[in-house]
């Protein structure tokens, strides 16, 4: 086996030195009836060229160069090529959680830079080293709010990503088992597509731990964060803002009124990869830092006075606190956080704004040309949006999806799987890399509705 650095002669010699007569001696502690006396029934050992061929064939099962208007929490932005060249350096790739600070300063300083960039972008005081993704990050942010307030109730906007809500519901299950329905959803205004503020006001009580909204929300609409914060804070509840499209922060006002921000940083240079790995991160006001989940990197000095970085505040964590920890999280998404850090360094202060503006322009153009077709109109036009929009078509989306597929285009996502009231509504996203030519083809195909439809 080519990954194993030993000859059979060396194995035999080592066994002799140990005093074992054969390798089986070392497994004698496993009761014989449970020892596997056969080969595992898995594919035979392959050569490297066969492995590459297997995956190339799997990848080639559909046309690679489809143009996609899918977004909905996963966004295809251009990934500067230096990201992959840097994260494939073995010193980053094959290192582990920086428990031994003296020989992991590279990872530690990079995470410190990541924490700083996330705090700067979100308008929060501090950010952690990363969470698994945006959905689990949102669930952890809710648990954090419950710890901070000592309250149980959680209000979540229905405009939050449906799969994030499902995950939060899963995490809340055990509390519901004891205290009843602790997580409640608040509907949206049918004109603006924003959370229904009157319904929110009516739902918040002095038992509400937090209000959680997403902005831009699942429909691409930017929520009225100051107004929502007022409603939550009046009753002593925290405001948690979930951000699924991190690029929006280049041009959209950060949710500075929030107490906790839970963000998915996939847009910062992370490949779509059929759903993961991505990069969640939790940011918060400084006073809540000791209730934060996950790793934190802090600055300090060594014995000679040199600046250095360490994992810190670990008394919150499972390896110290065990069942009293703030979370069970151990492994996070360090390498993906590094991708985001490099991405943000490449674009920098000006570039992130320019990039966000391009997205805004592309999406505005797409919305305009798609909605110009017969039987098509935009939904939720009463509030500002970033680079996603909801389109209603009189024609069944299944019909025009078929026409678009012929052109190697994947159109907007049908919303009725999560919002039955939004039949014939599709969610479209245009990022900076979708060429105008493809947008025009999509518009043309959408407009080519047959007379009977």
């Amino acid at each position, binding site marked *: 086996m080519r990954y194993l*650095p030993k000859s059979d002669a060396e194995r035999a010699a080592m066994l002799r030195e140990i005093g074992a007569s054969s390798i089986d001696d070392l497994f004698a502690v496993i009761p014989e009836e449970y020892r*596997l006396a056969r080969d595992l029934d898995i594919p035979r050992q*392959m050569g490297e060229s066969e492995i590459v061929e297997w995956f190339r064939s799997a990848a080639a099962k559909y046309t690679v160069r489809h143009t996609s208007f899918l977004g909905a929490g996963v966004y295809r932005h251009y990934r500067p090529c230096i990201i992959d060249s840097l994260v494939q350096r073995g010193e980053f*790739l094959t290192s582990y959680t920086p428990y031994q600070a003296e020989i992991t300063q590279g990872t530690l300083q990079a995470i410190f830079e990541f924490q700083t960039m996330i705090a700067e972008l979100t308008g929060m005081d501090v950010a952690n080293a990363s969470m698994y993704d*945006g959905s689990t990050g949102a669930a952890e942010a809710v648990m954090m709010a419950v710890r901070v307030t000592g309250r149980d109730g959680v209000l979540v906007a229905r405009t939050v990503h449906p799969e994030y809500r*499902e995950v939060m519901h899963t995490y809340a299950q055990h509390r519901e088992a004891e205290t009843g329905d602790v997580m409640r959803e608040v509907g949206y205004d049918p004109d603006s597509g924003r959370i229904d503020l009157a319904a929110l006001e009516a739902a918040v009580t002095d038992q509400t731990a937090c209000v959680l909204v997403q902005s831009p929300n699942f429909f691409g609409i930017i929520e009225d964060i100051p107004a929502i914060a007022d409603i939550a804070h009046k009753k002593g509840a925290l405001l948690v803002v979930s951000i699924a499209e991190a690029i929006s922060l280049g041009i*959209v006002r950060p949710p500075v009124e929030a107490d906790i921000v839970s963000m998915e940083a996939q847009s910062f240079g992370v490949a779509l990869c059929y759903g993961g790995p991505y990069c969640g991160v939790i940011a918060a006001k400084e006073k809540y830092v000791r209730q934060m989940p996950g790793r934190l990197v802090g600055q300090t*000095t060594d014995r000679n006075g040199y600046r250095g970085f360490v994992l810190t505040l670990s008394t919150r964590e499972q390896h110290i606190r065990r069942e009293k920890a703030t979370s*069970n999280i151990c492994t996070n998404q360090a390498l993906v956080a590094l991708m985001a850090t490099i991405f943000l360094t490449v674009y920098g202060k000006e570039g992130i704004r320019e990039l966000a503006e391009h997205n805004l322009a592309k999406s505005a153009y797409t919305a305009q040309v798609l909605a110009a077709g017969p039987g098509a109109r935009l939904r939720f036009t009463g509030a500002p949006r970033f680079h996603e929009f909801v389109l209603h078509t009189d024609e069944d989306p299944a019909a025009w999806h078929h026409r678009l597929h012929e052109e190697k285009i*994947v159109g907007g996502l049908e919303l009725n799987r999560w919002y039955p009231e939004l039949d014939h509504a599709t969610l479209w996203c245009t990022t900076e890399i979708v060429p105008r030519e493809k947008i025009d083809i999509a518009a043309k195909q959408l407009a080519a509705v047959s007379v009977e439809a």
Partner: protein
Amino acid sequence: MSNVLTPEASGTAPAGDTRTLGKVRPHQTQNEALVFEKSSPGKKAYRLAQLDVPAVDPGALLGDAVRREPGELPELSEIEIIRHFTRLSTWNYAIDLGMYPLGSCTMKYNPRVNELVARIEGLAEAHPYRPDFLAQGQLDVVDLLQKCLIEITGMDAITMQPAAGAHGEFTGILLTRAWHQSQGDPRRTVIIPDSAHGTNPATAAICGYSVENLKSNAEGGIDLEALARQVNDQTAALMLTNPSTIGVFESQIHKIAEILHANGALLYMDGANMNALCGKTRPGDFGVDVMHLNLHKTFSTPHGGGGPGCGPVACKAFLEPFLPIPVLVKDENGDKHWNYDRPQSVGRVRAFFGNFGMFVRALAYILANGPDGLRQTTEDAVLNANYIRKKLEDVYDLPYNTPSMHEVVFSDRRQLKNGVRTGDIAKRLIDYGFHPYTVSFPLIVHGALMIEPTESESREELDLFVAAMRQIAREVEENPQLVLDAPHSTRVSRLDETTAARKPILRYRKPA
């Protein structure tokens, strides 16, 4: 014995050289400021494609929601960014540089073909909401990997959704909870041995269970009588790591399972140490009901400085209806789909389908090994741990004399006489060119040195490690201060963790 430490013997140094220590000779690393300190306004490392649609006025489109103050991100050129992160990288130790015997973490070689195939455009650029008919290639990867992992574990069903080991524990315990509830018998407690990873009790608590500690017996294993006394009609499950965190296989595992099952409780296995079992024995055969795997341990996906991981959960058939949605199914034409219609499911534990990029890497590893390679890998991992044990047991205290599997745990009892603790020995090991072992864990061993070499180490590297450990043991006797002040050769010496925690500085702020 220690001649591998002398420069002459290493073949790379002239006689009389004093700069060489084992496999190490100092070299330069470059200083590098924080990226924010290197920034200067107006520098750019990007150039966007020309905008091919009309430009828009963000203020007009967004109104009050427009951002007025940009975030303080750095402004650098491309070459400076390359140098910045390359310089930082040189401050890291890594598997690619040498042995990384961090016990319980299974720091094995991360094959490069894994990285190549994970970046094939058709796999890396697929959107998770792409219709299933356009995702058959992705689903082939999921399907084959699931089949392999089910066979390797001897279980009946699997979910790939959990993002890491602890997330897998959470999922597995939710399955347990859902099953008990479906039996009309919600239970309250989860029993966890005192040797367990901290994630186990944290997980049980997050799932709403109260945690009952189980004291290990004199061999560091499960005390069957104590277990039998403790299990009752409120016990939902035992969370067991096997081999345990001291690297010992629970040879009474079938009796443990019997005690639990007789009381209607389940056996959860923390699969963190599956690298000791793969291809040699199967948890599903020895009575485990549900378990997680760590693809970043056993199946070679890179640790990446702390993630991403991937923590699939395998279970017996009776738990299958409770798996997170969606699950992969095949229709009569052989086409694969995601099925969301699962009324008994515990729900989702993560958006989308899990860390697909890690699935690709783990599958590439399994294909590169085949059944013979996986078995040989396990045998070599166990051989290496036992070799280290044999070569060090006369100088370091072995608290448990039970046979070791893939890792060996010593204690610092002998060195403590000279005021030297496991953490100090670990720091001195850095000077010899090794990443330390896991320090002070498991908690049942006072002053633990937890060493997991993995299969990836050659005999030469093991011998260098052994020589370094023996030399350090001598230094403890002859010059303990040398060890207490270590490391001596790193960019920074020991860092002030107390001040870091007391007055946390968690971000850079521009000087006023």
